[in-house]
């Protein structure tokens, strides 16, 4: 066994886990601040300067909560469901290049855990398995709110998986590879080579689907606070609920990375400026998630189904057909 490879991999994974768990915490802080400013409030202010230590306070609270397993739940599955959400979110990260490769102490580092050549399919597959977190959690909870949320979650996730699958097909026809590294290199020529300009329909469809797959606001029916309490998470408390939360926010970051790399040129030619540009794009996508939450109401489940199957899906199919013709002639 290649020891150097093993050490390198373990370091990468530890860095990814630490960075994105921390980012998930900061994500909640940013979300509260951004929402507050948009609603002309101040947001968290009391704990630490500008409320920055709120994250630490929340973390301590989550870790030291009393362990409650409500009556009538299926205990084993109740405990495993949050693990599935968190684990699949971070496993999806394996195929994402977070930065261009750089050299440190004369050792070349590729900031991607495994350059699998089915990269984007692997990410989609892991997100598909991530569905079982909410699904099993809701089913095991013995609470009718959780159960309604579960049924909705599955309907939403699977419908939008069709849309996102069809949407990324058109860019893949142009690139001819599933690896996110190749997709990035295809757009290395600068801003005019971005796939977002040659495939605007695919870009917008995938963006919409990203909102559904992370369960963010216009499609937040899964845990619609005013009718379903906290949806599948109603019966969860403490660190188990925290795992759902980390999974959700990590997913938001990872899907932002995928969008930035697939459609907005990623890190470009791999220079330092390109690396910062990638982080900027990801920050923009993350901010857009929060912005939408402040600006938009939720849609109804039937509207959402109508939108997927009767508007977005035909659009995606037509987009694939047109791309095929354009590439041929």
């Amino acid at each position, binding site marked *: 066994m290649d020891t150097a490879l*093993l050490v390198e991999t*373990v370091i990468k994974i530890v860095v990814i886990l630490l960075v994105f768990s921390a980012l998930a915490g900061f994500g909640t802080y940013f979300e509260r601040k951004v929402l507050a400013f948009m609603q002309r409030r101040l947001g968290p202010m009391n704990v630490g300067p500008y409320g920055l230590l709120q994250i630490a306070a929340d973390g301590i609270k989550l870790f030291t909560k009393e362990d409650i397993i409500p009556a009538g739940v299926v205990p084993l599955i109740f405990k495993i469901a949050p693990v599935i959400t968190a684990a*699949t979110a971070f496993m999806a990260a394996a195929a994402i290049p977070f930065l261009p490769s750089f050299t440190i102490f004369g050792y070349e580092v590729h900031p991607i855990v495994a350059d699998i050549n089915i990269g984007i399919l692997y990410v989609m597959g892991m997100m598909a398995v991530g569905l079982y977190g909410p699904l099993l959690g809701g089913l095991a909870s013995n609470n009718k709110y959780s159960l309604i949320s579960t049924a909705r979650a599955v*309907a939403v996730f699977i419908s939008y*998986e069709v849309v996102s699958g069809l949407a990324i097909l058109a860019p893949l026809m142009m690139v001819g*590879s599933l690896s996110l590294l190749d997709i990035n290199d295809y757009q290395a020529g600068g801003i005019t080579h971005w796939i977002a300009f040659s495939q605007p329909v695919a870009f917008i469809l995938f963006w919409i689907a990203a909102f559904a797959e992370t369960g963010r606001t216009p499609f937040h029916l899964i845990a619609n606070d005013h009718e379903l309490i906290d949806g599948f998470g109603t019966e969860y408390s403490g660190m188990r609920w925290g795992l759902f939360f980390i999974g959700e926010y990590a997913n938001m970051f990872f899907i932002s990375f995928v969008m930035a790399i697939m459609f907005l040129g990623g890190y470009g030619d791999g220079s330092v400026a390109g690396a910062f540009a990638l982080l900027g794009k990801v920050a923009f996508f993350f901010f857009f998630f929060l912005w939408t939450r402040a600006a938009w109401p939720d849609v109804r489940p039937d509207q959402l189904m109508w939108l997927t199957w009767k508007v977005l899906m035909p659009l995606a199919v037509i987009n694939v057909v047109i791309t*095929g013709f354009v*590439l041929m002639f």
Partner: protein
Amino acid sequence: MNEQFYLPLVVITITTIAIPFLFHLSKYLGEKSMNTNNQNEVYESGIQNTHKDSFERFNVKYYLVAIIFVLFDVEILFMFPWALNLRELGLFGLIEMFVFMGLLGAGLIYIYKKGALKWT
């Protein structure tokens, strides 16, 4: 097969599953669970025990969406190898796929006509 490619996947799978499981140990950090009956009651906005258990029958539409999804998912997965080979296959490949998509488009129109996706 090259170790370089699946070793990282093995490591990330093990770590990402093991660490969340370790989080479950956080129950020893806080207060001991009192395990009283009131506390373990299922949450129903303050009213206690209106339902003995929560399992209810659901609208068959959910099932229909799931089954339609399975079929379209199979279709999309078949389109991935085609999309990667588009340039080599040329016009013939394009026509092949349009026949395939045409048949499934017909299926989609059939679903619309039957009102299987009407949710009202």
